């Protein structure tokens, strides 16, 4: 039933819109600051620092990155590899575990579900995990150190997919498939997965985001710069800009000699680091919001 808005309500709606606009601005302003800083000239940065209103602009930082792009490109490659392999593996083993747990007639369902659930409540802490991956499995300075520890499967996601299977795939469908002689793998891959794309997309998105944004595994296990992902490169450069300077202090782009534009290139790198997220997120916003809501209602 729609009724005419009272004056009070019109005022409230207007005030809401204004306040929300300001919030949106606050959310976005820091990104603007680094974007503008990344194209500020060195001269402007020396006199005014990072500013929304630089005195002059320059693309030196991006040109320099193109010229000295090897380190950056390599870290991008590492991050893409880790994100892709980690997310795909996770999207295979997470539903594979969730499916038996969703089957009431699976003998070990109770024990396994408890183990998955308890892993969310209690842990052995960072120290034993570190010693196990670094010493027992010798993962230090291998690409697997960025993929395997912590992120490969998260108990919460298993329960999320399990609940989705239980609520959204009719039992009759599974029974019908069994009567037709389908084995468990066929039921899983031909019935469960196709009927669960929304939850798979949600889990995939959160997992992909976790891998792309992860720097803690790198902090613990990687000291070899050849295995730096984007985030770890960013840490290294925030602390020591000279790391980018692989050979000479100056770089030649065409005929122009560009010396390392330290202050602007930092911010250009931050922009490069979030670019993939900015590109992908608008497509996935729906799944993101749905994921938060179903996750909050019941784990």
């Amino acid at each position, binding site marked *: 039933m729609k009724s005419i808005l009272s004056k009070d309500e019109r005022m409230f709606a207007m005030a809401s819109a204004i306040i929300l606009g300001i919030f*949106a601005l606050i959310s976005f302003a820091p990104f603007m600051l680094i974007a503008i800083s990344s194209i500020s000239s060195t001269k402007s940065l020396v006199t005014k620092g990072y500013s929304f209103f630089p005195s002059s602009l320059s693309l030196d930082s991006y040109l320099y990155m193109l010229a000295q792009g090897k380190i950056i490109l390599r870290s991008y490659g590492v991050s893409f590899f880790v994100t892709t392999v980690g997310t795909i593996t996770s999207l295979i083993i997470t539903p594979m575990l969730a499916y*038996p747990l969703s089957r009431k007639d699976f003998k070990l369902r109770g024990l396994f579900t408890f183990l998955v659930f308890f892993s969310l409540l209690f*842990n052995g*802490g960072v*120290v034993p995990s570190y010693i196990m991956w670094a010493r027992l499995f010798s993962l230090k300075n291998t690409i697997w150190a960025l993929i395997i520890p912590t992120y490969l499967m998260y108990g919460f996601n298993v329960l999320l997919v399990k609940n989705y299977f239980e609520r959204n795939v009719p039992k009759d469908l599974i029974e019908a498939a069994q009567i037709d002689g389908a084995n468990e793998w066929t039921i899983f891959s031909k019935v469960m997965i196709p009927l669960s794309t929304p939850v798979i997309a949600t889990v995939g998105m959160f997992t992909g985001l976790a891998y792309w944004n992860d720097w803690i595994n790198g902090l613990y296990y990687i000291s070899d710069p050849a295995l730096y992902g984007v985030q770890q490169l*960013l840490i290294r450069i925030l602390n020591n800009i000279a790391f980018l300077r692989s050979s000479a202090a100056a770089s030649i782009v065409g005929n122009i000699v560009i010396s390392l534009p330290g202050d602007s290139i930092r911010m250009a790198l*931050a922009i490069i680091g979030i670019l993939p*997220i900015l590109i992908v*997120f608008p497509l996935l916003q729906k799944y993101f919001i749905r994921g938060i809501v179903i996750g909050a209602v019941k784990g």
Partner: protein
Amino acid sequence: MNPKRSFLQSVKYSLPLLVLALPGMIYLIINNYFPMLGIIIAFKKLNYAKGILGSPWVGLSNFKFLFSTPDAWVMTRNTLLYNLAFIVIGTIFAIGLAILMNEITSFFYAKYFQGMYLLPNLISMVVVSYLVFAFLNADTGLLPKSVFPALKVQDINFYTSPGYWPLILLIVFLWKNTGYASIIYLSSIAGIDRTIYEAARIDGAGKWQQIRYITLPLLKPTIIILFLFSIGRMMYSDFGLFYQVTMNSGALYSTTQTIDTYVFRGLMQLNNISMASAAGVYQSFIGFILVLGANFLVKKINPENALF
């Protein structure tokens, strides 16, 4: 029916399902359960040459030593107080944002606004540390270079002044998490029966009264439950926020050291594994007790929302 045969049948029946579950379960056992055995490290004087099992037992002396240092008090205080501030102020902001968002859901730009509020939540703490650096660093930061001179405020070197960081970290937390946290409240508000508001309007209730007497009371169960679950996480902190955003600055430890940063520094930088593992076990156990306590209370209030 012969029970033995039915057991064998059920094993045969469950076997394909077990095979499907196996990769995930093996990973879970290795990644989550095997390290739990490592809790014994906290009760030993670790010597890599002898191995964990061969190292001598020292009882509770690692814990005694940990709690005799001022670090134990500082990191516990910081962890709990930051969490408390984040929970209380974060909840107020999240609900406020959700109530306002609910007013404009019909507007075409609502989706874009929501996207902007979520954006800070999608970036890593490393990028957040860049944003904070752009605002605060003494040489080129926006505040020291542009804002303070204009306001004639004295120069502040933020990265060596611990007193400012509780506020800075609170702002960063709110900036990063409010949009995300508001989604849950927004979906709760959207679930409230519209006819209640219609009835209130007919009785002449204004917007404020509707919020005060309808929206907030109906959100109360959600608020309490999310609050209790946050209590269960009180011993844990966002490592990136306290380590990376502060740029691991030693001058700031008095207000930025949390249990997580202490464990990391003990393990990776100071090579003090005994203290690190004692602090880790302290965190895990108190944290576990808090989760159980929180769940107990949730169960009392609303059994449907209890975790177990």
